[in-house]
């Protein structure tokens, strides 16, 4: 494979990189962008009972220019997809995408023979980082998704893993 032959940088700032990644991972500002049912659970996750703010992720920015993570919370219709793509392109690097809910993962319950209106999953046109299944997922699942995203960025999971009994 050609990708393996890329020479690594001569000087590496490993610790600085780590710090930067930590910074990025703990200050994930989502874009205020709800599409459907899951958006309500996203709001619920931001509200008092679950409080995304604890992870520094409550700053829902209305402008894509200032947000780091896009939570695709709902069904993506074919009419909407170009808009979402534009929003994604407007976000500055580094940026991440969370596909929340079954609709955003694969079209969910709205996939059927002869469907004409929806895109079957956000990963068809966006590089999705985290998938959170559920219809809709509980707010804890979204928090878990944020934690998982932090794990992906830093390679270090700071919180215990909760197993449901």
């Amino acid at each position, binding site marked *: 494979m050609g990708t393996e032959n890329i020479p690594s940088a001569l000087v590496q700032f490993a610790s600085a990189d780590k710090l930067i990644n930590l910074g990025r991972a703990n200050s994930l500002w989502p874009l205020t962008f709800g599409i459907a049912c899951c958006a309500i659970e996203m709001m619920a996750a931001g509200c008092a009972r*679950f409080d995304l703010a604890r992870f520094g992720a409550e700053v829902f920015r209305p402008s894509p220019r200032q947000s780091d993570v896009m939570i695709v919370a709902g069904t993506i219709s074919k009419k909407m997809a170009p808009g979402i793509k534009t929003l994604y392109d407007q976000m500055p690097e580094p940026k991440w995408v969370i596909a929340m809910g079954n609709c955003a993962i694969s079209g969910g319950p709205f*996939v059927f023979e002869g469907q004409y209106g929806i895109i079957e999953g956000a990963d068809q046109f966006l590089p999705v980082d985290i*998938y959170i*299944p559920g219809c809709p997922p509980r707010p804890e699942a979204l928090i878990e998704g944020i934690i998982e995203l932090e794990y992906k960025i830093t390679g270090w999971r700071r*919180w215990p893993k909760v197993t449901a009994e």
Partner: protein
Amino acid sequence: MYRYFSEIFSGLWSLIVGMRITLVEFFKPNITLHYPHQTVKMPARYRGHIELIADEEGKPRCVVCGMCEKACPSGCITLEGEKPEGSKKKVLTSYKLDFTKCSLCGSCVDSCNFGAVEYSKEYNLASTRKEDYHFDLLKRLEDRHS
């Protein structure tokens, strides 16, 4: 003139009342569930994705009647079974659940006449791979029982 001043004062008063309420809230303990540290127990009827139920021997109770497959509105369930030689009943060989299409409506559990499927209590799934949610329920059942 009287109205002018009364409006100012009643307006100010309403603002002060509002501020008093938020101040009281400020000193109240918060109600947050600190999720990864604290968890809430899912109610008995919580509907997660489905799981197979094992009988006493650890084998699935499922008799491969296919009712759940038929009832599912979005076609998440595919199951296969075969009739081993010398046996009357069909034996389940694979039970695949595509959780990414599920709407958690419960039709499958409702339709099962043999009590072979139940809801799991998994409420906090998140992963970097979509394929993690194409469950092989039979395998999961075996993992739980081994």
